[in-house]
């Protein structure tokens, strides 16, 4: 059993590395601290005739035993900050030039993905709008614009190490580059109402040829009127009765 899902994006490995480096650094401190705690607890159990030492920890000669390790902790902290910051910046602060633009919208309780058609332009009549299904070619930078129709949602693909909240009223830019063909679950990571736990889609990472084939089949299957109809469809009314509204 793997500890984490397979890393399937260009930056997944970087995030994993940040996690393991932190785990290693804090792990050393953790083992040391727990070890010393246990050691003292057993070693200094009360014995007849042995009086505790009077060690108030007033002078630096004594507190140094704590303050100096804490300076070392400070150094570790800053190293962790510096290491993580580079990864964060690459992933979140700048969107690199992308070959493909995709629109993502969360609503109770489905994802709507808008793919540009053959023209590669989002917002043109040949857009392919599908619920709960996103197709991208492997190895290409994909930029997405994330929105929400009703309440908060969070666009999450564990294998890509991609997570971004969708906020009504905002169009949040993000990007990813999938590196392994396959299909991956798209989850919602932000509590969004009764069927939050049922809200899921699928990300298909296709080879270039498969992607083109899929694009052709969609264009053949989806007359322009259908796309328009989907976009015009009213937001599915939230259903107070549980377990019913999930497959909207």
């Amino acid at each position, binding site marked *: 059993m793997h500890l984490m899902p397979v890393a399937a994006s260009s930056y997944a490995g970087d995030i994993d590395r940040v996690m393991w480096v*932190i785990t290693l650094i804090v792990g050393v401190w953790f083992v040391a601290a727990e070890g010393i705690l246990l050691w003292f607890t057993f070693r200094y159990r009360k014995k007849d005739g042995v009086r505790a030492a009077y060690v108030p920890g007033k002078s630096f000669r004594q*507190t140094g035993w704590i303050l100096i390790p804490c300076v070392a902790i400070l150094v570790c902290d800053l190293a962790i900050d510096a290491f993580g910051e580079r990864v*964060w910046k690459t992933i979140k602060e700048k969107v690199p030039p992308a070959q493909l633009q995709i629109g993502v919208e969360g609503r109770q309780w489905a994802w709507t993905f808008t793919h540009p058609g053959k023209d590669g332009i989002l917002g043109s009549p040949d857009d392919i709008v599908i619920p709960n299904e996103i197709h991208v070619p492997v190895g290409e930078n994909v930029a997405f614009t994330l929105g929400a129709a*009703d*309440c908060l949602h969070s666009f999450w693909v564990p294998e890509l190490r*991609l997570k971004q909240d969708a906020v*009504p009223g905002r169009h949040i830019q993000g990007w990813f580059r999938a590196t392994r063909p396959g299909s991956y679950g798209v989850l919602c990571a932000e509590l969004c109402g*009764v069927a*939050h*736990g049922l809200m899921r889609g699928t990300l298909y990472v296709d080879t270039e040829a498969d992607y083109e084939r899929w694009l052709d089949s969609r264009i053949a299957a989806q007359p322009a009127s259908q796309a328009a109809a989907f976009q015009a469809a009213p937001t599915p009314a939230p259903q107070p009765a549980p377990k019913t509204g999930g497959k909207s």
Partner: protein
Amino acid sequence: MSEATILEPPLDPPRAAPPAAHAGAHDDAPHGFWSTYFFSTDHKHIAKQYLLTGLCMAVIGGLLAHVMRMHLAFPDRAVPGFGEVPAGTYNALITMHGTIMIFFVAMPVLLGGFGNFLIPLMIGARDMAFPRLNMMSYWTFLVSCLILLGSFFVPGGASPAGWTAYPPLSANVAYSGAAWGVPLWIAAVALEFVAFLMGGINFITTAINLRAPGMKMFDLPMMVWMQLVASVIFLFSVGPLVAGAVLLLLDRVAGTGFYNPGAGGDPLLYQHLFWFFGHPEVYVILLPGLGIVAEILPVFARKPLFGYRMVVYATLATGVLSFIVWAHHQFVSGIDPRLASAFSITTILISVPVAITMFAFVATLWRGAIELKAAMLFAIGMVGVFFWGGVTGIINGSAAADIYVHDTYFVVAHFHYALIPPVFFSLFAGIYYWYPKMFGRMLNETLGKIHFWGTFLFVNVTFMPMFGLGLRGYPRRTFDPRVFAHLGDLHPLQLAATLGTIGLLLFQIPFVLNFFGSLRFGAVAGKNPWRANTLEWTVPSPPGHGNFEGTPVVYRGPYEYSAPGRDADWFPQDVAPGRPL
């Protein structure tokens, strides 16, 4: 100061009046049943009211967790004693479990209970500075509890919007389906803050103004320092949250649009207001928990608390830093990503003052004469378990790593490891330690040790698997794991966590038996069963109305254990130098 004239009993600062002036104070104590047990202004009774109310809420919160865990382990079966758990109910369960445990257990027990009981006793005061305000604080709190619990029974059920109540889900009945639950939740939480605001003002005033003659700030027991700093943090942070809650209520009932983007508002505003309070709140809970441990370790190691002043300064630094870390809850919430690195740095930096305090606790054990009573086991256990919460917090605190672990079970595991030690381990440590003072009788040590080992084991059985779930990408707040094929093979971990919860609940039975049985069958405690230094141990157990016969005079710090040149290994704060004990 006009209230001062109507205070009852008279509450002049002890240093202002000679002891004899208070000789008649005991006669002012109300004697009737109702006035003693219900409408008492005595801080000790109010403390017990807070403590017992908090413990009752803990039972409810624990049972809610049990229902959730049973459902997660056996999703296709009804939960015995509860029934089916449909998605809407599940969301109400997570919301109410979190709300109850944080706001209606941790705060009433640690601040309302221990703070109320100990601050006046530890500083040599006859009561809180504002006893009637104190009573009002409790009754306001009780009303907020009733409103919250009542929300289970209104049409649509309790709030399903999560304990953070993020809008638009919480602001719009069409999104949540809970027409009454959410407004009642907001009202209950806002009222609860009002209660603790009154309590906080009282705590700060009392700790600063009513100290016994001779007691300098650096002679305060660490518990009083921690309560003081926690109250200051609470006072400074709660305003934005109350404002945020009122705006949410207005959005909800009056049709305003503070958080509604359609009307020019912004849902993220609420998140900032919530977490500007919400993260300092973690330290409002943590610090009193640390305070309890800081009182117990020196007594059962027979050693001074290592580096008293260093710990005070570290606590103050923790308090200040706690105000500039809040956005680490929002790294991927849609805030400007350039903010994340700064908040990541402050978040991870807070490990330094917290580490100073924790290491000082460990150092207190060095070359001690440690007696592993139940109180000491829970205190050491608190330190040991809290390390888990601390180090895993660094992973969450790093913005890059948080992209992955945010809103997974990893976070759930982390904050239970961070909160269970100060809330439950400290609570139990404190009860095993101060129960003799509160009720005049000793708790049974054997039952206490069984309670500790069972609790310690099953806390880990419950929450350790959740780190694994989170690493594998298991989202929190997911009511039906069968939806996600990739989560199927993680079921053994969910099952283990559920078994842990059952064990955890079962091992609270010895505690309940001990708590109520010892009221009647416990050995009579005497004034100072632990041979401790602080002032609460110089008065009868339980202390009478007005606490102190005269006004104690303080000659030294609270942790002079095993001092050189003295036969006894303890040296109470009020014993004049040169006098034998």
